[in-house]
């Protein structure tokens, strides 16, 4: 893992010291709220519906056990004993009190963490494939590049007051697990004809009120050109981006209004100016960073115990079938720990669960933990012989749910249970859907199905790219839920289509059930996934099931 340099350490400590004094000045009245608000937001502190909320960055989703334990300590000491993992690979604490926040930031700095640039119109936490460095399909670990981008973008003087926030996602694999096409800049690694790695650069993707899939502005960018090229994109955006209208200020609108060709031309022109100014210091730094992400010393040991256990224990087998992914080392597996037990809040982990995950990562996972944008926790390197023991330990603390990629593995934003921007609740919709399909014992039969729920048009819950997306709105003072179908957040990204009129709070779960039952009736075979069936048949049969009461026959 990357460790802070003296420079990083001094910078983060000085920001904690500054903010400590700013809080003191706010509390003694020397600063008004109007003066204080931008200062607290620069440090990740929001005022939400019922309390303050502190958003802490987990750079490219990577955590050490030591850091995870500190998050648990913060949750116990200054919050209510839990934390909420978000779709941006951050963690949010929902109940901090203003006078305690400097102490929390100081505790974060003790483990090389902070809340800087988790709000505001700047480059936010750079997100990455949560299987980085472990996935079998990966060309190269994207995290050294993400760390380079983090260092470059942190406190970058030119990009602290962009027209709007700016999100970069990066993956080193052809299978996109980082939703790169729905980011302001998406970076996907490819190899060129000579076999060298480079990035496809996509610009202008984003969800929110105007969902758009990113446009490729460079098919292949040599890795050495990454910083000057990203700087060129930001520089063009900083100049062109609309500061007159908040709703048209994201780069996706800039690209849309300017045209992909013209934006590409301008970026290339700016890149030609910037490239010579990068004298190689960035590449020297990248080499140092790379060393910090060297793979662990993989163990070479038999995996017979795993095979035997897999055959013998059905509950272990169910978990292994859904929660494991292929590791680049055949003796290893990537473990996704579901933070989505049926009926529990998606993405919430208690301090006890955090400590158990930290211990297990240390004992069985080469000390590596990841947070996924799908709000789960990953142990990227587990030797297969350790899986039965690991599974048993997870089950004991409610972390053994075998549902990754299934209907109850739902992304849900905090919604109107916490968020000041929300127009409806999302968490209770997620828990009710999960509970309902658990009761029906249908979720393994249904197979891969991603439901994503947002409690407002800003789409933190990625509903546009859910196979089934749910958007909570306020319709004449009542919660109303709009459904989209056919969304996809992978390398074949698509924005889902609206089905039609929305559903009331107590109608939405039965509506989802009608869609899913229709799918079970319509699929050509058990192996045809929901998304494949939707792509084959289109919206009509699902619409009929949803609105005409058709397709309600029992799927069996």
């Amino acid at each position: 893992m990357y460790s802070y340099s003296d420079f990083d350490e001094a910078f983060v400590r000085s920001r904690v010291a500054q903010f400590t004094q700013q809080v003191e000045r706010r509390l003694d009245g020397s600063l008004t709220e109007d003066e204080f608000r931008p200062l607290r937001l620069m440090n990740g502190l929001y005022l939400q519906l019922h309390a303050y909320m502190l958003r802490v960055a987990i750079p490219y989703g990577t955590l050490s056990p030591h850091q995870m334990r500190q998050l648990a300590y913060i949750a116990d000491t200054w919050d209510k004993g839990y934390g909420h993992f978000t779709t941006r690979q951050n963690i949010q604490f929902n109940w901090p009190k203003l006078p305690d926040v400097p102490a929390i930031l100081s505790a974060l700095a003790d483990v090389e963490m902070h809340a800087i640039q988790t709000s505001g119109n700047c480059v936010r936490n750079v997100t990455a494939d949560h299987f980085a460095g472990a996935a079998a399909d990966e060309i190269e670990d994207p995290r050294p590049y993400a760390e380079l981008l983090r260092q470059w973008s942190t406190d970058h003087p030119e990009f602290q007051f962009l027209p709007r926030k700016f999100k970069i996602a990066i993956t080193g694999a052809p299978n996109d697990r980082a939703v790169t096409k729905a980011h302001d800049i998406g970076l996907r690694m490819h190899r060129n004809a000579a076999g060298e790695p480079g990035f496809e650069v996509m610009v202008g993707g984003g969800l929110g009120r105007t969902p758009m899939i990113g446009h490729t502005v460079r098919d292949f960018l040599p890795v050495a050109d990454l910083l000057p090229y990203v700087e060129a994109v930001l520089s063009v955006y900083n100049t062109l981006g609309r500061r007159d209208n908040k709703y048209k200020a994201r780069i996706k609108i800039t690209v849309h209004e300017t045209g992909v060709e013209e934006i590409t031309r301008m970026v290339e022109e700016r890149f030609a100016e910037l490239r010579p100014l990068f004298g190689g210091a960035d590449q020297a730094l990248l080499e140092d960073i790379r060393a910090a992400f060297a793979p662990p010393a993989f163990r070479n040991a038999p995996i017979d115990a795993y095979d035997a256990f897999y055959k013998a224990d059905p509950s272990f087998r169910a978990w292994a079938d859904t929660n494991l992914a292929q590791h680049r080392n055949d003796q290893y597996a990537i473990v996704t720990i579901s933070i989505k037990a049926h009926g529990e809040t998606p993405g919430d982990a208690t301090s006890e669960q955090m400590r158990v995950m930290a211990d297990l990562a240390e004992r069985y996972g080469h000390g590596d933990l990841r947070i996924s944008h799908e709000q789960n926790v990953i142990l990227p390197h587990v030797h297969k012989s350790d899986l039965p023991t690991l599974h048993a330990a997870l089950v004991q603390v409610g972390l053994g749910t075998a549902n990754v990629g299934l209907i109850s593995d739902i992304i849900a934003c905090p919604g109107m249970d916490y968020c000041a921007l929300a127009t409806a609740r999302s968490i209770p919709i997620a828990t009710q859907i999960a509970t309902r399909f658990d009761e029906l014992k249908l979720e393994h039969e249904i197979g891969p199905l991603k439901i994503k729920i947002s409690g407002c048009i800003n789409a933190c819950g990625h509903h546009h790219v859910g196979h089934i997306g749910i958007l909570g709105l306020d319709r004449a003072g009542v919660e109303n839920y709009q459904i989209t179908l056919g969304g996809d957040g992978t390398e074949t990204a698509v924005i889902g289509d609206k089905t039609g009129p929305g559903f009331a709070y107590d109608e939405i779960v039965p509506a989802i059930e009608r869609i899913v039952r229709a799918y079970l009736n319509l699929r050509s075979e058990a192996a045809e996934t929901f998304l494949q069936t939707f792509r084959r048949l289109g919206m009509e049969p699902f619409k009929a099931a949803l609105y005409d009461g058709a397709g309600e026959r029992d799927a069996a």
Partner: protein
Amino acid sequence: MSRPYTPKVVTANRLREGDVVYLTADDRWTPHHHEAELIVDEAHAQMRLLHAAAQKLLVVGAYLADAKPGAKGPEPVHFREAFRTRGPSNYDHGKQADLRA
């Protein structure tokens, strides 16, 4: 004829804790919605909001929220304001827990 004025309460969050509070007729900040002053006159509402906004060391983000008279006192009209009287629906946290204790 102008439309009748929808009654209001003044609400905000406490500066230090972030808790949701309401302004009472005797100038206190209460966590209980039903103890709030129900304001039925627009000009008076603006005066009360100014009064609230001036209390910079006590509260943040004061605004007027629609309310209606109820058996115990003012009741919220919109579901967002109803949630603010209680706390989140996924845990027994926030005012629903704190006020019971």
